[in-house]
């Protein structure tokens, strides 16, 4: 089965074409550009390059898998809407997958693991994982969350986590006190591995909804500010 893999939940703009066989996912071609400001510019051009390099047409693709975050919102939406439009244009199913799950699926070994990516505003997106399951996905030990890095170790109490993947594993190595391991970003093969069970079963995809984990910044306005300068003082004086 030929599957397109897209992810824009991190600074990496990722497009790949993966074949899912009995032995697991195998990447046929991929383009990854690390640039947090170029998701909208590069994602579709990269995907078209990938298809040309691998010698396939979009119509031959059996499914589309897209990282649904968590990730900084504007970039994240590029991948999601690209997948939605491609799914519409090619009449192909689109499977969202948690981007942290995709990173976890690509890590070696079965020891408990932290995955942490950049949530900006001095916070990280994170989740903890257990052993790989048949198909390649790791079992989640926690739900994906957003947290200040210094609070993450407390959340891992009793889980036996010793290593960490994701771009924040290296940056917060001291704070986490965990050995950093690859990958830093979701890979095409990891995205497919994390979805392999659903893809093989031909399951109906989950709704194409991003994992925002934060509410929009918006406050309801108070009453309009008075514009007549100093009116209260004037009234006090008269």
């Amino acid at each position, binding site marked *: 089965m030929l599957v397109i893999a897209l992810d824009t939940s991190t600074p990496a703009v990722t497009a790949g074409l993966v074949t899912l066989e009995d032995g697991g996912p195998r990447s046929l071609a991929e383009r990854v550009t690390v640039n947090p400001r170029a998701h909208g510019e590069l994602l579709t051009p990269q995907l078209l390059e990938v298809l040309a390099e691998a010698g396939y047409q979009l119509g031959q693709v059996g499914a589309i898998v897209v990282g649904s975050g968590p990730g900084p*919102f504007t970039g994240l939406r*590029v991948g*999601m809407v690209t997948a939605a439009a491609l799914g519409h*244009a090619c009449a192909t199913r689109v499977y969202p997958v948690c981007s942290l799950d995709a990173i976890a699926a690509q890590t070696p070994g079965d020891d408990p693991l932290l995955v942490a990516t950049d949530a900006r505003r001095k916070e990280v997106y994170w989740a903890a994982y257990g052993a790989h399951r048949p198909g390649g996905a790791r079992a989640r030990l926690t739900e994906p969350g957003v947290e200040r890095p210094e609070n993450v170790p407390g959340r891992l109490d009793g889980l036996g986590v010793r290593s960490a993947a994701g771009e924040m594993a290296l940056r917060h190595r001291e704070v986490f006190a965990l050995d950093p391991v690859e990958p830093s970003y979701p890979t095409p093969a990891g995205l497919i591995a994390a979805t392999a069970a659903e893809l093989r079963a031909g399951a109906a995809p989950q709704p194409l909804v991003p994992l925002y984990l934060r509410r929009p910044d918006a406050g309801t306005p108070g009453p309009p500010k008075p514009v007549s300068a100093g*009116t209260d003082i004037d009234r006090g004086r008269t």
Partner: protein
Amino acid sequence: MPEPGRIVLGIETSCDETGVGLVRLMPDGSVRLLADAVASSVDQHARFGGVVPEIASRAHLEAMAPTARRALEQAGLELSDVDAVAVTAGPGLAGALMVGVAAAKAYAGALGVPLYGVNHLAGHVAVDTLEHGRLPARCLAMLVSGGHTQLLSVAGIADTITQVGSTIDDAAGEAYDKVARLLELPYPGGPPIDSMAREGDAHAIAFPRGLTGPRDARHDFSFSGLKTAVARWVEQARREEREVPVADVCASFQEAVADVLTAKAVRAAGDLDVDTLVISGGVAANSRLAALAADRCAAAGLTLRVPRPRLCTDNGAMIAALGAHVLASGAEPSPPNIPADPGLPVETVVLR
């Protein structure tokens, strides 16, 4: 036998409307509207008193593919019938634009058709060709909406547009929203003020006409001072414990807006020696603006063109119409790596 012409899909996500339109470009260069599907997030913004960019962007993502499907259904077409994709590349809200641009690239890439990243403001002018046919060789366009208030000289809808004047502070629609909030009327402020104004006296209160002095910028607008003047007047009335005559305030405010807009537009048309004025954008639906523009254009011997209200507000049909004119002009498509440009100048009709 298939119908002649080429089909252009237009995508608009610059503010709070997700719009997808379909237009047929006929062999003679005329354009026909086939579909105009819009999903609005305006209700989600109402309690914040203005468009919240992140809420708008989230709504665009949800609505994008469903709105495209709805447009195709309306037109009785398949995506495979589409010959070109046009998308608003700017100006607008960065995160909102990005959703439309990314979707347009995916549609164009999947269909193997050219992509045109086009200017939202030019789209507001181009939409009138769906209703009133070809534009004259030169005309003046006035765009009035919640985000824009501009006078544009249009010498070629696909390539030659220059700004004659614009607001130096608030857009006209923004002034409506702020005055509505002051008077405790709902958001967006245009419709409730327009309807209250019908029951009021437009000459009850002499609100200022911004930038109309002899030494002021001839073709620019300012609505911030007007908004403040209304606020002062209302505060004073409340302080003196007089009942605020809401209908008179609305009518007098609306008169000040319509007076300045139409007076400056008609004068600019004279300065540029053009015989046609196109008024578009959300505020073009305002009843007093439309009536005063009709009177003053008639008196000045100008042809006035105002698209129907549905086409004046943001929609995908305007972008499809502009895309069709660009396609007809033989312009090169935009490169596949175009960005969304929140500050796209009006002179740039198509992104290169």
